[in-house]
């Protein structure tokens, strides 16, 4: 099954602007995207609804990682995905250009907290997303405790519509 993600250009720009803001104790910012979903033959489509930045006070001190967020941030995200039932995508940026990749810490922490998203919204898939300045990479879990699958295709609905399929084009 192929997974594609659609996001409007204005929302993606807003996400990038928010993640680029410095934080007084964390090295980087993180946030959450909520998305609707739709099944198409042999594929799954994620349609991004909104962006929820993590509040300044919800970051915790941890010199070993770029950003650590507390349970309060997770609770707020789960609340946002509860009604209407939404996919939750944890998002942060690595900056730079080209196709970004997840770090070991990203994958390890994702494996820990993404299954928790299914507690509040079991009918939707949940995952992780990392951005660069012109690209994106994502992982999606269809069930808690199972292995994740990659998001194959990112579509920026804008003027012009931009598709990043196997990093062929920039998502920008």
């Amino acid at each position, binding site marked *: 099954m192929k997974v594609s993600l659609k996001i409007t250009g204005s929302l993606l720009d807003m996400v990038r602007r928010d993640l680029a803001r410095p934080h007084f104790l964390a090295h980087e910012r993180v946030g959450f995207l909520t998305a*609707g979903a739709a099944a198409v033959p042999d594929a799954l489509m994620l349609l*991004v609804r909104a962006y929820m930045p993590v509040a300044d006070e919800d970051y915790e001190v941890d010199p070993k990682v770029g950003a650590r967020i507390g349970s309060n941030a997770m609770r707020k995200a789960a609340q946002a995905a509860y009604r209407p039932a939404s996919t939750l995508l944890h998002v942060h940026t690595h900056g730079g250009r080209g196709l970004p990749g997840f770090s070991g810490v990203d994958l390890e922490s994702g494996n820990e907290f993404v299954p928790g998203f299914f507690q509040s919204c079991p*009918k939707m898939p949940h995952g992780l997303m990392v951005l660069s300045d012109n690209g994106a990479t994502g992982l999606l879990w269809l069930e808690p405790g199972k292995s994740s699958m990659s998001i194959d295709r990112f579509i920026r609905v804008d003027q012009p519509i931009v598709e990043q399929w196997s990093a062929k*084009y920039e998502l920008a």
Partner: protein
Amino acid sequence: MSWLDSQSFLGANSEQRLAEMTVGLVGLGGGNSHVAQQLAHAGVGHFVLADADHISLTNLNRLIGGTWWYVLKRTAKVAIMKRMILAINPKALVEIHCKQWQLAGDALKRCEVIVGGLDNVRGKDELDAFCRRFLIPYIDQGMDVHKLGAGHGHLVAGQVVLSEPGSPCLRCMGIVTDAALAEESRKYGAAGGRPQVVWSNGVLASLAVGLVVQMVTPWTRRARPGAYLSYDGNSALVKEAERFRRWTAASCSHYPHIAVGDPSFDIRKLVVGDVNTAHAPLRWMEWIIRFIRK
């Protein structure tokens, strides 16, 4: 050298982008028959065509690609368009659905852009709602012939509207109104059931194709999301509609972002379905079994 080389002014990768994109054409009447032909010439590589109608004699005055032979054979309009597209671009992948577009929802969800050629307001409203739900830019074409006062003849007027995320929708722009929905049955109004409107359809279709190309290639950018181009067929003028120019609301109130996606979606059902199909016999095995049984 490719047959599309002269389109290089459209920007980097534009030929490839057009070849990779999927355009949905809903309603293959007079308007969208022009659109199908032009998009095939432009190099669009994937089409999803939906229309339940078959060609009849009354369509021959405006359906591009329509011939007496097709009329005699009562050929489906989607089949006529498929042949026309493939005659221009044999590499194009054309998926046809000879049924109401609502029954081809799964195929239409995959489209990057949908161009509507529906002649009823309710259908336009439903298609706009469908596109908003799946973040698909929707281009609507509408044309009407009005009888003017005694001795003044008829007015040919129409519009092309681009409704996309972040822009006003057909309801915001006054294309879909309660009054128009109530007046649904009038269709082509004063001109009767088979108006000769092939040239005005062509104008509107060309505007729609221009919007499609603009949305896919980096050729040029519009100043703001959406478009509402108003056409006066009698004076042969196209201009941006006053209503669109004055629209200043921050967002469309009819289709909030929170409503995108399928509200009945449940990943658990999808995963179960996937597991069941994973154990289904292979298609070639099914074919052999059927052959042996025969």
